């Protein structure tokens, strides 16, 4: 039975940057600010080399109210979804990804020092957990930097 299982998860140091020049016309001027943020990136793939779970539904649950979604969205063409957890809500953040009758859930531990993916990533086959572990180490560093910057 070919199971469809999602989720290679990385807590990734992702950056969003805008660097647009201010318009010359001043009648309706805009003030654009460029910056970077770091947070959690979830990458969902089908098991067995089935490719990315593009357009999958994503629901994020914060630790203060685990019964209700904190954020919802969809993965991109590469099966990726990015969000920035609220540092004021330390604890276990659960991220559920599902598509076409299949899905899984991963857990991200957020502390004052940063974040890391919990060992129990339901929905992940053992072979993918090895990949996930590498991503966690890198991502946790990135997220820790993010929280340190916020605290500064």
């Amino acid at each position, binding site marked *: *039975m*070919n*199971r*469809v*299982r999602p989720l290679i998860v990385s807590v990734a140091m992702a950056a969003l940057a805008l660097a647009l020049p201010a318009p010359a016309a001043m009648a309706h001027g805009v003030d654009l600010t460029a910056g970077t943020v770091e947070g959690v990136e979830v990458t969902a793939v*089908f098991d*067995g080399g*089935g490719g990315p779970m593009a357009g999958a539904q994503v*629901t994020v*649950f914060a630790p203060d109210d*685990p*019964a*209700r979604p904190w954020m919802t969205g969809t993965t991109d063409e590469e099966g990726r979804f990015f969000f920035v957890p609220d540092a004021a809500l330390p604890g276990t953040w659960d991220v*559920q990804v*599902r598509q*076409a*009758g*299949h*899905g*899984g*859930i991963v*857990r991200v531990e957020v502390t004052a020092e940063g974040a890391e993916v*919990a*060992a*129990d*990533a*339901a*929905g*992940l*086959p*053992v072979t993918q*957990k090895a990949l996930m572990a590498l991503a966690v180490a890198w991502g946790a560093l990135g997220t820790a930097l993010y929280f340190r910057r916020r605290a500064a």
Partner: protein
Amino acid sequence: MRQHRLVRTMALLIAGVLVLAGLAGCATDGSGADPAPAASVVETGTLSFVADGEEHAREGTTSKEGWEITFEHAYVTLTGITAYQTDPPYDVDADAWDIDPLHSVTLPDEFTVDLAAPASDPASVGEVGDAVAGHYNALAWDLVRASSGPAEGLSMLFVGTAERDGERVDFTLRFDREVTYLGGEYIGDVRKGILEAGSEAEMEMTFHFDHFFGRDDKDADDPMNIDALGFDPLAALATDGVLDVSMSDLEELLPAEEYAKLEAILVHFGHVGEGHCIARPLD
């Protein structure tokens, strides 16, 4: 004699001191009894259990070959239904049957439910009114042959109709495979299993009929359709538009490759929403 009186006097003095000390001790709390340890209050709520064949069972489904299938009945018989609170959460992908729960709730007895009815909701199985509050994030159950009722002797009984291009097959599929399931947290539109004190929460056993018949809205080479039996192999066994077969009939009549698919499907039929379970035959 004087020595004896002295000893008696000393004994009385010591006894008096002990009594006074005792009275002083009693006076510290004024109750005369050891303070009772604070009673631990266990907060509880109602945990209900449902079984769901999703819209495929309730409203009908279209097979990978285009058969429009509707069910008059889709009976499954369940027992040993147990919900668990686990921390860390039970990891279904560890493929481990051992589970070490903080709390568990078992629904006693055997239940035969019709996944085709009611049309609008999952079938209610039962509830436990004094379940310890918390997050029930794992669920186990057995699919067994019914000891009585409309599906007596069968673990699953599907009765319905398949139609395509003017052709119609009235089918009765009788399965006797017994399977045990263990799944993690429910995956679906809403989050289930979080029980607050004095409140209610729901656990769901989900059965994926699209794994059985495939889906016409997916490509033929989609993994789901490759693994699904579909309805063509069953239609080929019908006589005058009627098919009434048991598992042993299908073992005899289906090509070996199709029968192997069917056996795999029956074992992996149970889910927790869109989350998969580990499963093994009980036979």
